[in-house]
């Protein structure tokens, strides 16, 4: 019996586009085998790939503290968190592959620096307090960005993000708890926390991207249901959420202009140094070269494991046949 689908005339592009638009308008999800505009597919691959790269590179700054964690409890928590980041990267590469991307090829593009990862991971983790601040501020900002992505119009991405968001909540809470513990400690420990907050606050605000009037690509992504809120909206939400958390913790956010606007109930904050952001994103941050060097080493030095497992699988398959 021949497959009837093969004999159907291919619907014309206008009809397919109409069907796609109707799916988006109805807030239904686009699934992998649906027709989709080429621009939608490419934009999603770019976005999901950089997101996956960020998770994988994000293992490094915190991974640096695995062997120096102050207790077995802290080490087990940190290990679980770093393992989660690997998992998040893999969920996302898996979503990108449903769009026709190839995981090994995406990794190559990361190492060759043709595709980027978030600038936040190009800052070094100088003290153990940085582990706590990354959980609290960096993962907190990531949650603000990621929660709306659970409603992304592309099914596999939305489903991956639901899984990621569930796990990020643990990341943020372990970070905040770590900092609360240090703030109950010695003056030196408290100073360590304040120093880490001073270093990570502005880069965390930069995570939301350029101001709305300077991000012209956003409109199309909004229309496609890939992006749900503007950069400035999410940044504002993050600031408003974080200020009371900082008060409970007993740290000062390093911005003299930060103040509650009683009329709007929102916080005003100072100007972000976009020159620094640009420097870091173009490869001149404190740790860019080191991050890529280690990712390349992980690929190349471990290639023999991949090859050995493949050889074993082939031999095994041959014996079974």
């Amino acid at each position, binding site marked *: 019996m021949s497959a009837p689908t093969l004999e159907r005339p291919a619907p014309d592009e206008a009809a397919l586009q109409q069907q796609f638009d109707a799916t988006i308008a109805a807030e239904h999800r686009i699934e992998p085998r*649906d*027709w989709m505009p080429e621009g939608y597919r490419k934009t999603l691959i770019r976005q999901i790939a950089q997101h996956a790269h*960020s998770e994988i590179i994000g293992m490094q700054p915190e991974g640096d503290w695995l062997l120096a964690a102050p207790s077995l409890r802290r080490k087990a928590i940190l290990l679980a968190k770093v393992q989660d980041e690997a998992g998040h990267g893999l969920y996302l590469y898996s979503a990108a592959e449903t769009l026709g991307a*190839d995981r090994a090829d995406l990794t190559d*593009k990361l190492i060759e620096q043709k595709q980027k990862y978030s600038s936040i991971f190009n800052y070094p983790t100088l003290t153990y307090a940085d582990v706590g601040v990354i959980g609290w501020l960096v993962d907190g900002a990531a949650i603000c960005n990621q929660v709306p992505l659970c409603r992304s119009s592309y099914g*596999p991405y939305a489903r991956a993000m639901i899984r990621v968001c569930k796990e990020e909540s643990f990341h943020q809470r372990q970070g905040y708890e770590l900092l609360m513990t240090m703030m109950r400690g010695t003056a030196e420990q408290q100073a360590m926390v304040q120093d880490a907050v001073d270093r990570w606050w502005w880069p965390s605000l930069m995570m939301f991207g350029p101001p709305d009037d300077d991000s012209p*690509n956003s409109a199309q*992504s909004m229309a496609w249901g890939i992006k749900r809120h503007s950069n400035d909206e999410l940044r504002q939400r993050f600031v408003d959420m974080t200020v009371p958390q900082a008060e409970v913790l007993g740290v000062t956010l390093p911005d003299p202009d930060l103040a509650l606007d009683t009329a709007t109930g929102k916080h005003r904050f100072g100007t972000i140094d*976009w020159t620094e952001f640009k420097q870091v994103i173009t490869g001149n941050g404190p740790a860019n070269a080191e991050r890529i060097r280690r990712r390349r080493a992980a690929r190349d030095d471990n290639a023999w494991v991949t090859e050995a497992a493949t050889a074993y699988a082939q031999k095994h398959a041959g014996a079974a046949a």
Partner: protein
Amino acid sequence: MSADVTAEGGHGAVPLSPDVPVEPKPAVTRRDWPLYEVFVRGKRGLNHVHVGSLHAPDDEMAVHAARDLYTRRNEGVSIWVVRAADITASSPDEKDPMFAPSGDKVYRHPTFYEIPENVPHI
């Protein structure tokens, strides 16, 4: 500030302009392992549900990798893996007319039949 940086993906803004390459290079030698689809039974009494995919060298390793990747927090009591290449799907399009014939057979549903209200247990 360059206009080609956007913050749509997770951990922050990166360049996502059209010059960021996305088309896979034709691989000379395949370095990656085959793709497996993963199905997890959340708890006894439920069906296995598709949760995602992963790469593994063989079936056994795929099960181990699926455990590490998809059940780190008691998400399952049983895992199935199957090579993605071995799955036969209904059509290249999720909106296939294959499912249209069931749309007009309303008599297959219990609500199609009018039963007087004084008839119990039906």
